[in-house]
C-alpha cells in the first residue's frame, strides 16, 4: 500500500480509530498495531512478511543473548554475528544480482563459466530501512544504551507501518520508550500531523511527480536529444524532485505517526540551504547520516588517528552509504563523489575558508550538490558523461516553461528563506482546530488527486532503495 492511494486512504482511518480505542490496553494495542503493520507490508510483498518476521526474531534473540552475556568478547562476537546476519539478508536480496553480474563478466573475460547462478532476486520493499533499524537496535543493546525489549515491542518497532517502507530510520532508543506506556490521548499533535500529511502530498504528487514527467524523465532518458539549457534545467528539476519526493514521503510518515501519538526524528532540515557538504549531510536524510556516523564512521575510527585515516573513513563511509542507495555503479560513484567533497572540505577547512561570503559558499555547495544528483539520477555511467557533455552544448531551450520553473522555485526557494517566518507560518496554521485542518486537507487532496495521471502516483524514489 502506497501512502497516496485510495487503499491507504481507507486503511488509515480504520487503524487510527482502532489504535486510539485500544491504546489504553497495551496487551491489545500492540498485537493490533503489529497486525496492521504486517497487513500494510503484505499489500506490497506478502512473501516478504516472513523476512521481516525473521529479521525481528533474529535481532530479538541476538539482543537477549548479548545482554545476558558476561564476557565482552562474547558480546562483541554475538553482536558481529547479528549484524552479519542482517547484512547477509540485505546482501542477498539487494546486491546478489549486481554482484553475480559483475563476477560473471570477470570470469567470462578469463574464459571461465560464472561461479554463481545468474538469477534475479526480488527486492523486498523497505529492506534497507528495517535491516538498518534492526542493526541499530542490536548494536545499541550491545553498547548498553538500551535494554533488550520484549519480542512484541521489537516487532512493533521494526514493522511500525509509518516508517516501515522508506524511513525515517528511527532508532530503537527513540521508539521503544514511546512503547513503554500508552500514548497520551490528551496531548496529540494532530494539527501538525495533518499539516505534514498535506504538505507531503503536495510535495510528492504535485511537485515531484510533475517535474519527473515534464522534464526529468525525458531528459535523463535521452540527454543527447537536448541542449545545455534544457539539461541544466533538468538537473535543477531533479534536485527539486528528489527533495520533494523523499521529504514528502517523510512528512507523510511523520504526520501519520503523530496522529497515532508517536514522534519520529527529523529527516530533513532545509538541505539546499547548506553552505558546505558537511552542513548538507546534517540536513539531508538526517537519520541515515547519523546512522552512518554512529554505526560506520565512528567504528571505523572516525577522526581519531590522523588526517589520512579520517579521509579514508570518510570515503569508505560515503561509498558504502552510496551503495546503500542501490546496487549500481552510479550510486558507488555518487558516494565516492560525496566522500571526495567531504574530504576536500575537511582539507580546505571549509569551502574557500571562512572569509568567503556565505552566499558564495551556498552557491558553490548547491551546484556541487546538483552535480551529485546528476550522477545519482543517471541510469548508467554512460548517461552521466552524456548528460555532462550536453550541459556544455549551447542551443535553444525547449523545456523552460512557467509551470516547471514555478515547481522548481516552490521546492527550493522556501529553504533559502530565513527559517523563522516559515516556521512561524507553520506554527500559526498548526494551531488551527484539527477539524478545520481535516476539512482543508480533504479539499487539498481533491486538488492533489486531480493532478494524478490515469496511470496513478509514481512510486516514491526511495522505495527502490
Amino acid at each position, binding site marked *: 500500500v502506497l501512502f497516496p492511494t485510495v487503499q491507504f*486512504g*481507507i486503511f488509515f*482511518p480504520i487503524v487510527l480509530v482502532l489504535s486510539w480505542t485500544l491504546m489504553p490496553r497495551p496487551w491489545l494495542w500492540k498485537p493490533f498495531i503489529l497486525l496492521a503493520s504486517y497487513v500494510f507490508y503484505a499489500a506490497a510483498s506478502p512473501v516478504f512478511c516472513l523476512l521481516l518476521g525473521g529479521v525481528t526474531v533474529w535481532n530479538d534473540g541476538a539482543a537477549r543473548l548479548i545482554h545476558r552475556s558476561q564476557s565482552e568478547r562474547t558480546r562483541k562476537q554475538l553482536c558481529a554475528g547479528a549484524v552479519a546476519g542482517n547484512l547477509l539478508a540485505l546482501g542477498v536480496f539487494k546486491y546478489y544480482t549486481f554482484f553475480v553480474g559483475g563476477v560473471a563478466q570477470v570470469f567470462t573475460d578469463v574464459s571461465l563459466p560464472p561461479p554463481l547462478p545468474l538469477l534475479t532476486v526480488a527486492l523486498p520493499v523497505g529492506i534497507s530501512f528495517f535491516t538498518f533499524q534492526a542493526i541499530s537496535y542490536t548494536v545499541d543493546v550491545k553498547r548498553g544504551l538500551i535494554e533488550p525489549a520484549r519480542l512484541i515491542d521489537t516487532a512493533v518497532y521494526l514493522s511500525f507501518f509509518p516508517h516501515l517502507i522508506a524511513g525515517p530510520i528511527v532508532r530503537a532508543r527513540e521508539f521503544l520508550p514511546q512503547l513503554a506506556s500508552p500514548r497520551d*490521548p490528551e*496531548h496529540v499533535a494532530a494539527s501538525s500531523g495533518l499539516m505534514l500529511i498535506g504538505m507531503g502530498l503536495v510535495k510528492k504528487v504535485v511537485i515531484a511527480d510533475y517535474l519527473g514527467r515534464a522534464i526529468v524523465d525525458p531528459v535523463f532518458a*535521452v540527454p543527447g536529444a537536448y541542449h545545455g539549457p534544457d539539461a541544466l534545467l533538468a538537473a535543477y528539476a531533479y534536485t527539486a524532485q528528489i527533495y520533494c519526493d523523499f521529504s514528502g514521503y517523510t512528512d507523510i510518515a511523520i504526520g501519520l505517526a503523530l496522529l497515532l501519538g508517536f514522534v519520529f526524528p527529523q529527516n530533513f532540515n532545509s538541505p539546499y540551504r547548506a553552505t558546505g557538504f558537511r552542513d548538507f549531510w546534517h540536513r539531508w536524510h538526517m537519520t541515515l547520516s*547519523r546512522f552512518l556516523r554512529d554505526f560506520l564512521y565512528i567504528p571505523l575510527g572516525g577522526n581519531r588517528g590522523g588526517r589520512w585515516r579520517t579521509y579514508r573513513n570518510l570515503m569508505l563511509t560515503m561509498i558504502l552509504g552510496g551503495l546503500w542507495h542501490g546496487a549500481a555503479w552510479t550510486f558507488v560513484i555518487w558516494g565516492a563523489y560525496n566522500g571526495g567533497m567531504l574530504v576536500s572540505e575537511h582539507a580546505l577547512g571549509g569551502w574557500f575558508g571562512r572569509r568567503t561570503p556565505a552566499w558564495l559558499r551556498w552557491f558553490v555547495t548547491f551546484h556541487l550538490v546538483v552535480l551529485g544528483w546528476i550522477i545519482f539520477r543517471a541510469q548508467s555511467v554512460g548517461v552521466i558523461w552524456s548528460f555532462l557533455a550536453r550541459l556544455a552544448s549551447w542551443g535553444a531551450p525547449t523545456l523552460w516553461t512557467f509551470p516547471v520553473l514555478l515547481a522548481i522555485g516552490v521546492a527550493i526557494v522556501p529553504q533559502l528563506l530565513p527559517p523563522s517566518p516559515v516556521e512561524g507560518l507553520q506554527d500559526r496554521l498548526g494551531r488551527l482546530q484539527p477539524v478545520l485542518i*481535516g*476539512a482543508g486537507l480533504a479539499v487539498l487532496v481533491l486538488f492533489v488527486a486531480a493532478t*494524478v495521471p490515469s496511470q496513478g502516483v509514481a512510486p516514491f524514489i526511495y522505495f527502490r532503495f
Partner: protein
Amino acid sequence: MPNPNPNPKPKPKHADDNLMDRFDRAGTRRFTARQAIVAVLIGSVILALAAGTSIRKAGNEMNPGIGRDAVLAVGDPASWLAQRLPLRPAAHTLTAWLSPDVNLNGLPGFAAYTTTTTGTAGGIPVVTPNSFNPSQLGAPAPAKQRLHTLLVTGDSMSEPLDQYLAQSLLPNGVSVIQDPHIGTGISSTLLVNWGQLSAYQVRHDHPNAIVVFIGANDGYSMPGPDGRQVNCCNAQWAAIYANRVRQMMNTYRQDGVAHVYWLTLPTPRDPARASIARVVNAAIEVAAQPWADQVTVIDTVPTFTPNNSYRDSMTVNGTPTIVRESDGIHLNSAGSQLAAKLVLGYIDQNFIR
C-alpha cells in the same frame, strides 16, 4: 531480576540530532486523540462524497482479492451517494483543469466489431495483397523510406526499450516519441482505452513507424458479442483480444503510410502469467495477418525464452547476462538493449535512417 551484564551502562542519552521534542514547542500538542480522529473522519467523509466514483473506479482497477473487495465495499456506497449530491460535479468543475491526461473524449474507442468472435456475417474473410510480405513471394522489397518519426508506446514493457531506441536513433536525426502508459492493458479500458489512445497518438504525432510492446497487465475479462464478460484465456477471449489489437494495428498503419512493429511478450516466470502471455502472443500473430507488408510482429520468445521456457539470464555478446527484472515479467536494462537491437534490425529492413 538483577541485570547480569557486568558492563557499566551509560545513562541512555537521546540522540543529539533527532529533535524528538520539536512538536512540544508552542503548544502544538494541545489537541486530543478524539479531535484527531474527528478531523480524519471529517476529511474522509468529504473525500468520499466528492470523489466516491473515483474510489469505486480505483477498486475496479485492482486485481481480485481482499484489497479490491475492501475498496469496493467503501467505493460502491460512496459512489452511490456521490452521484446524488452536488459535491462531485462541483469538485470536478474546480479540479478538472489540473488533469495531466490527454483528452481522449470524442475519439473512437474499440469498435463494436472487436467483440465479434464469429466469421464476417456468414461470408468468407477476403485475403488482400497486403496479407503478404513481399519476401514471402520472392518479390523485391519495396523501396526504403526515410524514417522521420518513430513512436514507441505500450505499457511498462516499453520501458526502457523506448530510451534505447531513442538513444540509437538520435544520431540519425530521427524524432523518437516515447509514450509509455504504465499499468495499462488492451483488455482493460479502465485506465486507458487503447482504441482511443492509438487514434490520438496517430493524429497528434504522425509517426511513420510505430513500435508497440504491451501486454504485461492483460488478462482482464472483456465484453463478448452478447455483452457478457468473457474471461481470459479461451479462444473466444483470444479472438476479442486479437480484434482489439487488429484495430490498433490498423490505426497505427495509417492506411499503409506507416509501418508497425509489434513485439510479442517474452514468457514470464509465473506460470499463470505465462499462460496469459502465450494467448496474447497468439492473438498478436493472428491480428497482424491482413497486413504482413505493413505490420511486423517481432517475436521475442525465441530470443529471450526459447520454447517458452523462462530464464533470468542468457548469453549476450559472449557474456552470460541477466536480462530480466526480478519480477520475472519485464526486461531489465540489458534485456531492453537487446530488444532494441532486435527492433532496429527490423526497422532497417524498411527504412533508411
